């Protein structure tokens, strides 16, 4: 019986080394590429015939668009709608990546700290640069909120700095932990189905329930990730 952690192994699909640095095109990269292509093709196919009164195919992207639009509007505010495309991409990429990972023989790139951590750090850099671009030196107020006496600055500034830097970390851990746990659970139950023989239908029933639950978790975690990104973007645009 193979290990339940085997599914998270990264294998090079197209080996590629530059001066001893491994830059191979791995199964993780392949999963990301397929996810991105899937989103693009889905949107292209659904929005081929655009009309004022949407048909069924057109209403799917429109519903998603409106959902995220309202999310950005309530969590970031009117000024945040400029950065709507970024949040929309984030949501689609993570949600489709999570769902795509549930298929047999596919790979869940959102279960890797390296992939999600890079995405979260990118989002943090994006937030910081927008904060500096929009508020110039006023952005430094993030580290010393209004109403705090300057005598407390040596204490408050490091705390705020750690608070800012810990945000991508908690975002990453939340998503990765949820994805990893779900997939390990599915794999272990799958092992029971095989090894119990005829009695295997009992874990099979559980597994079919859990996989539905996992689909829900996949969307929910993408949603939580998006909401928190929105809140952090809102924090960058105005001080606490």
């Amino acid at each position, binding site marked *: 019986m193979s290990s339940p952690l085997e599914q998270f192994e990264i294998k090079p699909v197209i080996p590629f080394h530059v001066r001893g640095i491994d830059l191979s095109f791995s199964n993780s990269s392949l999963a990301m590429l397929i996810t991105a292509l899937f989103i693009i093709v889905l949107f292209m196919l659904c929005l081929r015939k655009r009309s004022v009164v949407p048909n069924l195919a057109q209403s799917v992207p429109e519903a998603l668009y409106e959902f995220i639009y309202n999310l950005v509007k309530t969590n970031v505010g009117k000024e945040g709608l400029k950065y709507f495309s970024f949040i929309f991409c984030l949501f689609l990429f993570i949600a489709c990546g999570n769902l795509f990972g549930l298929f047999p023989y596919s790979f869940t790139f959102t279960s890797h700290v390296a992939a999600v951590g890079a995405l979260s750090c990118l989002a943090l850099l994006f937030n910081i640069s927008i904060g500096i671009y929009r508020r110039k030196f006023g952005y430094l107020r993030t580290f010393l909120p209004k109403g705090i006496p300057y005598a407390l600055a040596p204490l408050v500034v490091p705390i705020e700095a750690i608070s800012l830097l*810990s945000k991508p970390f908690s975002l990453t*851990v939340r998503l990765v932990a949820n994805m990893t746990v779900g997939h390990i659970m599915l794999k272990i139950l799958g092992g029971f189905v095989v090894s119990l023989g005829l009695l295997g239908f009992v874990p099979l029933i559980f597994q079919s329930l859990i996989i539905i639950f996992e689909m829900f978790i996949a969307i929910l975690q993408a949603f939580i990730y998006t909401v928190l990104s929105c809140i952090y973007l809102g924090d960058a645009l105005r001080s606490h």
Partner: protein
Amino acid sequence: MKKPEDIEALNKKIGAFKKKEAAKRKEAVDDARSENALTGFQLSIELVAGVFIGAAMGYFLDLMFGTRPILLCVLTVLGGAAGVLNIYRSTKEEFKE
């Protein structure tokens, strides 16, 4: 004037309704509990993240400045404070309601 059978039937009806209502209420409590557990789990990550990032920052700044244990100790504690601050900020909205 109502007959006793009518009253009995009515009593049965009332009992059935009460049972239904009680089951519904219990379900609602269970739902709220699982939701609270989920929120608790999410917030615990926030706390751990603060301490972890504080400790990591302290360790690497120590390596940079050569002040081996001092910054690690100070920033780990401040990281805990940052974690609590993060939790406070993310639950502030809920307390307002």
